[in-house]
């Protein structure tokens, strides 16, 4: 049972406020991702939950009991560090059983647990080795095994995959997801990799400057970002942002030396806000080569002067300019090959969103 509540948690180092009034309710069995740029406080938040640092104010409740003043060992959580932090002088088996040993679990039970965990993570042939004799991926597995051995209330993963190479990272990502399905234990997972966040999370909390910008499912975060920062942070290649003049209920863009009027779903809100111009946010996959459609009012065709093309294999990114701002479109590889000046680009604004240029907040 791992239900973690953070109530008005603040953390300051001296006069620097690192976390400001964090409220989080992490449900039992949830995989919550904390994501944000470096320095946003996500690792500090993790350390607060683990008890490695003291909170300045507020409280932390795990499974109904206030643990704000309890030491790490009394919180019944397990942590996987970015650096793995294996005990270099002990072999793999001892590394895994160390937590049990400290909690005075009987010897034979320790042994059973080590074998079970090692088998689950496919490291049972490495039990006699020292960490120095393992590869990066194996070390990562041992670090996970050490956390798993204790079956705690919650796991805290602090960027566990960031030291692996790209291929291994994808493999381990899948493995962590499988593991979460199988164990059903609460996991709090810190990362700065938005792909990891999107693929793993039950919910994502996006942090910036010690404030939670948005908390929601990956779908919500991606399609319905709360502000400019969240929209910009999630997605690769990132969302296009173009400042446009509002004309009645439409937005005006200049592309390929011509002006176009784009209809957007949030036109009422834009009108209500009385803004003269807004920032249009539109994902690259909404800018495609012409496809058949059923008379959709949000589908436009514009002329696009492609300046650079970046073939990605599955599709090709075409870069041009709207209103003098760089815009990325996602074309099929075939049309990408011939894309040049005056390319006919289909723009689907049905998922386009608008931001207030001054505050960066969504206009809705």
């Amino acid at each position, binding site marked *: 049972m791992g239900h973690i509540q953070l109530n008005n948690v603040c953390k300051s180092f001296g006069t620097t406020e690192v976390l400001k009034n964090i409220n989080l309710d992490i449900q039992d069995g949830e995989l919550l991702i904390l994501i944000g740029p470096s320095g946003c406080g996500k690792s500090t938040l993790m350390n607060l939950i*683990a*008890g*490695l640092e003291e909170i300045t104010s507020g409280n932390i409740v795990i499974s109904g009991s206030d643990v704000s003043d309890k*030491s*790490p*060992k009394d919180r019944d*959580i*397990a*942590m996987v*560090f*970015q*650096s*793995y*932090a*294996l*005990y*270099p*002088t002990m072999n793999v088996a001892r590394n895994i059983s*160390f*937590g049990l040993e*400290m*909690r005075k679990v009987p010897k034979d039970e320790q042994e059973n647990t080590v074998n079970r965990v090692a088998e689950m993570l496919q490291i049972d042939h490495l039990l006699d080795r*020292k*960490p*120095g*004799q*393992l590869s990066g991926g194996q*070390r990562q597995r041992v670090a996970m095994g*050490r956390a798993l051995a*204790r079956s705690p209330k919650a796991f805290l993963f602090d960027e566990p995959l960031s*030291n692996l190479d790209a291929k291994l990272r994808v493999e381990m990502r899948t493995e962590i997801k499988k593991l979460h399905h199988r164990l059903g234990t609460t996991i709090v997972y810190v990362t700065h990799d938005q792909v990891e966040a999107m693929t793993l999370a039950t919910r994502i909390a996006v942090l910036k400057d010690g404030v939670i910008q948005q908390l929601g499912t990956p779908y919500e975060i991606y399609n319905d970002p709360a502000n400019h920062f969240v929209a910009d942070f999630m997605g690769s290649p990132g969302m296009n942002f173009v400042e446009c003049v509002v004309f009645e209920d439409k937005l005006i863009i200049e592309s390929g030396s011509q002006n176009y009027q784009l209809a957007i779903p949030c036109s009422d809100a834009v009108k209500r806000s009385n803004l003269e111009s807004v920032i249009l946010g539109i994902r690259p996959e909404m800018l495609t080569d012409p496809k058949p459609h059923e008379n959709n009012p949000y589908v436009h065709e514009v002329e696009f002067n492609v300046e650079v093309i970046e073939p990605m294999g599955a599709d090709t990114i075409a870069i041009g300019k709207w209103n003098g701002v760089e815009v990325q479109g996602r074309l099929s590889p075939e049309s990408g090959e011939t894309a040049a000046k005056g390319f006919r680009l289909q723009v689907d604004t049905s998922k386009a969103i608008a931001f207030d240029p001054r505050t960066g907040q969504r206009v809705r």
Partner: protein
Amino acid sequence: MNNLVGHKSSLRWAVHISVAVLVVLWLIPTLGLLVSSFRTADQISTSGWWQALVTTEQNVIMRTAKPQDQQIIDGKYVIEGMLFSSKKSPEILAWGVSSIAIDDYIPGETAKLRKGGEISLRGDGYYHMVSDKPFKGSRGTRVFVKASMPPEFTLDNYRNVLFDPANVSGMAKAFLSTLTVAIPATIIPILIAAFAAYALAWMQFPGRALLVAFIVGLLVVPLQMALIPLLKLHMQIGIGKGFLGVWLAHTGFGLPLAIYLLRNYMVGLPKDIIENSRIDGATDFQIFMKIILPLSFPALAAFSIFQFLWTWNDLLVAKVFLFDSSGQTVVMTAKLVELLGSKGGNWEILATSAFVSIVVPLIVFFTLQKYLVRGLLTGSVK
């Protein structure tokens, strides 16, 4: 830019040569001492150790056997024998019986003695003294010899120092005394310092930084300043002079460096490992014993070597805190001083004893040095 592949810095040679020169400079005195320890007192006093391997021409003063050994052969008083006791005798080039003319005769000639009688000397050192009257006096006749001495080495000095009953009891006792001083005086400060260093590196408490600064400050206090007050204190609280006193003194003088060294090492250990063991449920004591201590071997070994060498070679602290009137607690350094002082320049004994006393520090160094270079943290983080 000199370190790029393919570009060898011209300074590299300068560095290599200076290192080689320094090493040779440092080793020469030791080598001299080693060579001297295998030479006889005569050799040491007549030629330098660097001539030990070549045949040299030397002027030596030898004495014949004492008059009491004279025999009467055919009515004449005769003393005969070999001038040189060693088997490989030097070849005599010239000789004489007066200090004014030491090379008047060649081997095989016969010389008149001042006190009467005559002496003949062969090239291999055999002498024959004949006189009508008995030889008088208690000492043998002086013979001045100019000889080419072949290189010769002897184990006599070591036999003398290690097995001669007259020396052995004193030396063995001094050896044991030194061990009794050095071993606890190394272990006690390490024990205390390791705990202190862990606390100063990883435990949170108010005033920690001040305490560290204070210990660094203690590093510069010269120990001579504390000798007398400390001895007074020992006398007052009843420790007096003895092993306990010298252990405490060495511990005290060694602690600042030990704590400083170990703390700086421990602070550099990865924070993640310690935090992880804290989450795993280990107490501070368990973290120290199971995680920190095994990882701190390089620092512990480094300090052990320092402290052991210093206590082993120490004379000052032992003189102040240890020696009492019983004479039972003399350490080796003091014994060496005694050997040199009382017998007035027994260099061969001194050189030999010095080498005997070097053996233990060498063993300590070579057993511990492997810990100095081992990469203990491999595989732990990243």
